[in-house]
């Protein structure tokens, strides 16, 4: 059955592997994927552990529905203590690895210690081998996957790997699979690198037996129609997530030249539709009918002929407006390089844009950059900076440390120009006109992050009636909700609802584009109980699923508090309050966040969460979720 997969404990120091079943009781509390990973993180990482030391734990998991008939059940979750922030490290990726891991017999991997030399894991049909990876060290993410498949003699093997950036402990290195699927945020690639873990390969022939296969198939057809009939899905089938950048730039909600503007006009060459002209087709992840991954050949420059996938919204921001570049060539090449090196594209672009503003302001000079002309809009310098970060050369060695550590090394007023929360750079969007989205990034559990709690549909001007239908289920809510994205009132509940929604899909192993992220009528708590029941046999109500999500999210909060989080860190950079937007539609122009109103939002957000004024879950809340005795070491 889908619930029969095991957990494996892999001690790299002593090269030992132990496996165990996952009790049904834990499934009912945490479902799987990110949820159960958060339990493991809280229980297995010692307080204060060095994120790049052997006491940190690298977690890999499939979701409860990963690899089943549930649509887009492709997701793999990667976790540990973040080398970037020191708080929760957690990243989620599509592709085919998660389903293959389940077919090889495992749902969760708990990787501890440090190997005495480069290794990779080979997981197949219930077996786990720790193998030498000396010959893979130094290879990029794409080469590594090919070499592992060749070595093991099976082209259908799925591989997760780090690139050179992870080996070099770049604090925002990611874990990659396929050409572009990245567990991108919080530096999980650096964590793997610190353990000398180069890759994990999986291949399985163990069927994932479904509880009610015929009914599951029929119900999934309904869900597929629900998803693919949405305009947002049809748009993504043509443009991928690039379309978001086009829409938000049209309004004036993107980040330009670090944070100096919120719209880039006349940049026709980097409009999604222009990039789409280069596309030779699209590809999809396991079980997905949307197929949002654009496929390209690079046609110019030193990477001519390279076959790439992506770029997505974030790479367009990272190698376009953020760094003042307006050519799609730079976007395509930048995207290709971060995928090969295994770098978080968002953090990479943000660090370069920040360095460019420091350069513009004279805080960094050509002396600091070894002659690299880091002026905004210098396409060649941007590409060179990517190389330097991954290889830890020149100024790249400092930028590779991530926002806070790099600011400390550079000194002067460098920190003033950082656009980050909790040491993680913000998405390439501008939230000054949108308090709900600002609250999302200020409070997200892994640092500034749109994928943790962003109520993106707040931008759609939906009628209150529609908002109530979405945000009133499965937990009743009769507080304010408004259609105006400039409002402060009512938004904290939207953020909390989205937290639970995104936590739940991450526990289930379903893509966020198949829930209420970009489309208001996508599957959510209403559809998931039946989906879970038909695929796994597990009987859960919508409220049960909400509680699982709440339990996991609360553990994330507890972990962060244990590692030093304070209320002051649930906050935005000063520039959000002190500098006004200078472009865009009248509704977004001349806007900044009001400090007092924002403080009230935080208060309300804490209250709705049943956290105290310092952001700590109350005893009552912990008891309601059964978390009062954690860590309990049940797994």
């Amino acid at each position: 059955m889908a619930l029969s997969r095991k957990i494996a404990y892999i001690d790299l120091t002593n090269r030992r592997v132990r496996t165990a079943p996952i009790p049904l009781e834990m499934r009912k509390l945490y479902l799987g994927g990110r949820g159960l990973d958060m339990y493991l993180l809280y229980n297995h990482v010692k307080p204060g552990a060095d994120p790049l030391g052997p006491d940190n734990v690298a977690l890999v998991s499939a979701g409860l529905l990963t690899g089943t008939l549930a649509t887009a059940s492709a997701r793999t979750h990667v976790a540990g203590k973040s080398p970037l922030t020191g708080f929760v490290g957690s990243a989620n990726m599509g592709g085919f690895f998660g389903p293959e891991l389940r077919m090889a017999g495992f749902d969760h991997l708990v990787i501890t210690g440090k190997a005495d030399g480069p290794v990779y894991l080979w997981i197949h049909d219930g077996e786990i081998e720790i193998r030498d990876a000396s010959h893979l060290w130094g290879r990029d993410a794409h080469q590594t996957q090919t070499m592992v498949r060749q070595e093991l003699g099976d082209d259908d093997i799925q591989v997760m790997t780090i690139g050179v950036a992870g080996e070099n402990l770049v604090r925002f290195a990611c874990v990659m699979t396929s050409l572009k699927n990245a567990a991108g945020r919080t530096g999980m690639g650096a964590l793997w690198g610190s353990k000398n873990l180069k890759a994990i390969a999986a291949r399985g022939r163990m069927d994932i037996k479904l509880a009610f296969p015929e009914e599951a198939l029929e119900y999934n057809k309904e869900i597929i129609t629900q998803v693919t009939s949405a305009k947002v899905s049809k748009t993504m089938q043509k443009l991928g997530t690039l379309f978001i950048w086009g829409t938000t730039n049209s309004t004036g909600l993107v980040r330009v030249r670090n944070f100096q503007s919120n719209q880039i006009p006349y940049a026709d060459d980097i409009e999604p539709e222009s990039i789409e002209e280069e596309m030779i087709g699209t590809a999809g992840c396991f079980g997905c009918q949307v197929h949002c991954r654009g496929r390209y050949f690079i046609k110019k420059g030193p990477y001519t002929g390279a076959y790439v996938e992506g770029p997505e919204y974030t790479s367009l921001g990272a190698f376009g407006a953020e760094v003042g570049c307006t050519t799609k060539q730079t976007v395509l090449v930048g995207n290709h390089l971060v995928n090969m090196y295994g770098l978080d594209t968002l953090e990479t672009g943000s660090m370069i844009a920040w360095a460019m503003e420091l350069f513009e302001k004279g805080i960094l000079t050509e002396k600091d950059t070894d002659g690299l002309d880091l002026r905004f809009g210098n396409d060649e310098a941007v590409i060179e900076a990517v190389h330097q970060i991954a290889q830890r050369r020149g100024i790249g060695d400092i930028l590779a440390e991530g926002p806070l550590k790099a600011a400390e090394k550079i000194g002067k007023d460098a920190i003033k120009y950082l656009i980050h929360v909790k040491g993680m750079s913000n998405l390439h969007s501008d939230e000054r006109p949108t308090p709900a989205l600002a609250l999302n990034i200020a409070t997200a559990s892994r640092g500034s992050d749109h994928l943790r709690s962003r109520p993106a549909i707040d931008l759609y001007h939906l009628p209150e009636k529609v908002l109530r239908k979405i945000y009133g289920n499965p937990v009743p809510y009769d507080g304010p909700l408004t259609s105006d994205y400039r409002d402060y009132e009512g938004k904290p509940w939207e953020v909390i609802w989205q937290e639970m929604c995104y936590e739940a899909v991450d526990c289930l192993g379903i893509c966020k584009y198949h829930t209420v992220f970009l489309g208001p009528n996508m599957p959510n708590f209403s559809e998931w109980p039946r989906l879970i029941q038909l695929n796994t046999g597990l009987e859960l109500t919508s409220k049960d699923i909400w509680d699982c999500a709440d339990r996991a999210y609360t553990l994330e909060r507890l972990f962060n508090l244990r590692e030093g989080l304070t209320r002051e860190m649930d906050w935005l950079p000063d520039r959000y309050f002190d500098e006004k937007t200078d472009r865009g539609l009248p509704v977004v122009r001349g806007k900044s966040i009001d400090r007092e109103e924002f403080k009230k939002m935080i208060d309300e957000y804490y209250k709705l969460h049943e956290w105290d004024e310092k952001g700590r879950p109350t005893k009552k809340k912990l008891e309601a979720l059964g978390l009062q005795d954690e860590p309990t070491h049940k797994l």
Partner: protein
Amino acid sequence: MSKKTEESAAKKVVKGRTSGQFRCLNCFERLTPPPGAKTFTCPNCGYAWRIYWFNPGEPRIRGPVWDVNEAQTQKSMAENKGGK
């Protein structure tokens, strides 16, 4: 396994879908441009949009007609219509 007799949420959602339209990003009016139109001006607020047809019957905003919309915005800001 529980029996489902009423129409599922998924089916209800699909029935309510609309196509052939997009919303003006300035005033949120639902607009129906002529098939194949490259640009369309919102009759409600005067903002002009370049259109991309991702399917023959389904338009989306590709971007603003920059000059027109910037002039509209300047006028609007001068009249203090940005609000809030």
